[in-house]
C-alpha cells in the first residue's frame, strides 16, 4: 500500500431534489487495496460510486486523483482518468463478442486524422489483445468469437470485470459483482478482484455478502443515511460490529 491515496473524496454532498443522498462523505482508496463499501439499501453507496465514475457530479466537495482535483463530469472522462466501473447490470453488449465488448467505445482504429467514427477497425489487434487478457486472467469462455448473449452469468460477469482490468490504471469500482452468481461462479469473480488488486489498482467493492468482505477487503467503509458511520478492518471477530454499523443498531 502506497502512502498517499490514489483516490480521495472530500466532504462530498449530493442532493436529488429534496433527498440529501450524500451528507459530507469522505473516503480514501489506496493502490493495491480492496476497499469494501458497505451499507443498507439507500445508504448512499451507489450514489457515491456514481459520482466517482462520472455518472453524477457532486454538489459540494471534491474528488482528488493522485492528489489533484479531478473533473469527472462524464463517464468517458472518468475512464480517461483511469477509473473503471463494473456496473451491476454489467453494461455488456449481448450482440458483440468478448473482444468487441472490451474495446467498445475505445476501438483501436486508423487513420488518426479521420474523425473517430469514420476510422477503420484494427480488428485482429483487438482480438489478440483481448484474448491475451482473457488468458492471463484464466477466464474460461466457450468461444471467443461468439456473441456474449450465449454465455452464462458468471462468464458475462468475468468478461465485464476483465474489460475493466484491461483499461484500469488507478481505480476499479465493482458494484455487487457476485449478486446474481452461484457459489462457484462467485469464487472465480472474486479471484479476478484479487488479481485487479495485485496489479496495483485501488479496488472499491460494493457487496452485501459479509463472507466476501471478510475474505477479501483490507478496509471497510460503512455508510448509513448518506453519512460515513464507520471505517474498520473487517475480520471475523468484528463481523457483528460491522453488521450493527450497517443497520444502525447498538453493538
Amino acid at each position, binding site marked *: 500500500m502506497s502512502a498517499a491515496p490514489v483516490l480521495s473524496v472530500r466532504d462530498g454532498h449530493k442532493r436529488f431534489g429534496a433527498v440529501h443522498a450524500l451528507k459530507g462523505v469522505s473516503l480514501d482508496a489506496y493502490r493495491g487495496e480492496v476497499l469494501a463499501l458497505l451499507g443498507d439499501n439507500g445508504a448512499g453507496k451507489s450514489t457515491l460510486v456514481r459520482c466517482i465514475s462520472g455518472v453524477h457530479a457532486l454538489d459540494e466537495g471534491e474528488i482528488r486523483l493522485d492528489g489533484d482535483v479531478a473533473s469527472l463530469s462524464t*463517464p*468517458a472522462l472518468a475512464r480517461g482518468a483511469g477509473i473503471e466501473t463494473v456496473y451491476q447490470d454489467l453494461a455488456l453488449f449481448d*450482440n458483440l463478442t468478448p473482444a*468487441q465488448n472490451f474495446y*467498445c*467505445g475505445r476501438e483501436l482504429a486508423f487513420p488518426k486524422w479521420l474523425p473517430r467514427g*469514420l476510422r477503420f477497425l484494427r*480488428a485482429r489487434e483487438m482480438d489478440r489483445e483481448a484474448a491475451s487478457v482473457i488468458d492471463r486472467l484464466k477466464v*474460461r469462455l466457450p468461444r471467443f468469437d*461468439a456473441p456474449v448473449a450465449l454465455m452464462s452469468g458468471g462468464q458475462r460477469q468475468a468478461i465485464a470485470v476483465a474489460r475493466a482490468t484491461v483499461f484500469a490504471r488507478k481505480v476499479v469500482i465493482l458494484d455487487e459483482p457476485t449478486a446474481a452468481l452461484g457459489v462457484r461462479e462467485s469464487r472465480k469473480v472474486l479471484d479476478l478482484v484479487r488479481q485487479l488488486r495485485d496489479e496495483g489498482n485501488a479496488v472499491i467493492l460494493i457487496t452485501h455478502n459479509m463472507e466476501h468482505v471478510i475474505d477479501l477487503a483490507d478496509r471497510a467503509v460503512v455508510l448509513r443515511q448518506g453519512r460515513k458511520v464507520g471505517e474498520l478492518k473487517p475480520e471475523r471477530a468484528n463481523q457483528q460490529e460491522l453488521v450493527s454499523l450497517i443497520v444502525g443498531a447498538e453493538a
Partner: protein
Amino acid sequence: MLAEATRDPDAMSGTRASEDRAGTAAVALGLRLLSFGPIVILALLVLAISLLTPNFLKPVNIGNILAQTAVIAIVAMGQQLVILTRGIDLSVGANLALATVIGGLVFRVSDSAFLVILAMLATGTLVGFVNGAVYVFGRLPHPFIITLATLSICRGLALELSINHTTMRGMPAGVNYLGETSSLGVPNSFFVVFGVALLVLVMMKSMVWGRWTYAVGGNPKAAVEMGIPVKWVLVSTYAFAGLCAGIGAVVLSGRTGASSPLYGNLLELDTIAAVIIGGASFLGGRGHLGHALVGALMIGVIRNALNLLNVDVFYQMIAIGLIIVLAVEADVLRNHLEGRARTNQARAQ
C-alpha cells in the same frame, strides 16, 4: 457453436453430462439452422417456382427480378441499419417520391444527370437527417412518430411541388442509363445495388461507425456509459437511410423515365418486411447486410412468381404476410434457444 465448452473434459461427468452435451449440441444446431433459415427458404422458393413455371429461370426473367428488386433492396439496406439501432423509418417511401419530384423539377431547368442525381440524393439525405435530428435532439421516445410525420410531409410536399400534382415525364440520359439499361446482360440497377451493398458492408464491418451502430442497438444505456456518441450515431443512421431512399429514387425514375409524387407507396412496409423476413431481429442489435438483400430478393421472387403463375395480387400480399409471421416467430425461437445456451453454459461451469 458451443462445441469447445462441451469438449472440456472436466466440465461435466457421467450420464447427466452426455444428456447435457446432447442438449447443448441440439441448441447449437438449432441456432445455426435459424441463421441460415432465410437463405434456405429462398432457395426452396426458387426451386419450387422453377418446377412450376419453366419461364422463371430464363435469363430475361432473372434480369426482370433483379431490376424489380433493386429499389426495395437499396432502400432496405438503409432500413436495415435503422432497425439495427432499435428504430424504424416509415418515411422512406414518401422520401423517395419527394426525391424523384425534386429531381424532376431540376430536370426542367437542366438536363444534367449529375445535377438531377445530386438533387435526389441531397433530398433523401436531408429528410433522413431531419428524422434523426428531431428524434434525438427533440428527445422523442421512439422514431415511429417523427418518421410517420415526415412520411406525411414528404408525400404532401411531393404532390404540391410536382407539376399538375402528378407524374412528370422525362429524365436525363444518365439517370435512365442507371435505372433502365443493361450491361453484359445484367441490369445496371443491379450494379447500383452491388455498389451500395459494398459501401454498407465496409461501413458495418470495417468502420468504427458500424461497430457503434451494433453497440447502440445491442445496449443503448451501456453505449452511453462506454462513451459512444450515441446521438450522432443515430442521426447519421437516419441520414444514411434517407440517402438510400435517394439512391432508390435515382434507380426508380431511371427505370420509368419519370418522377412522381405517388412513387414508393408502401415502400416503407416492403423494406421493413424485407429486413425482417431476411432474418434480422426486430428488437435491434442483430442483423447484417445479407438479411436486407435476401429479404428483398424473397419479396421480388414471390411477386414475380405469382405474376408468372397468374395469381391474383392479393395472394402475393397474403404470402408475404405469412412469411413475416414465420420470420418473427423464428426470431422468438432464436431468443429462446440463446437462453437455453446460457443455462447450459452455467451448468457446464
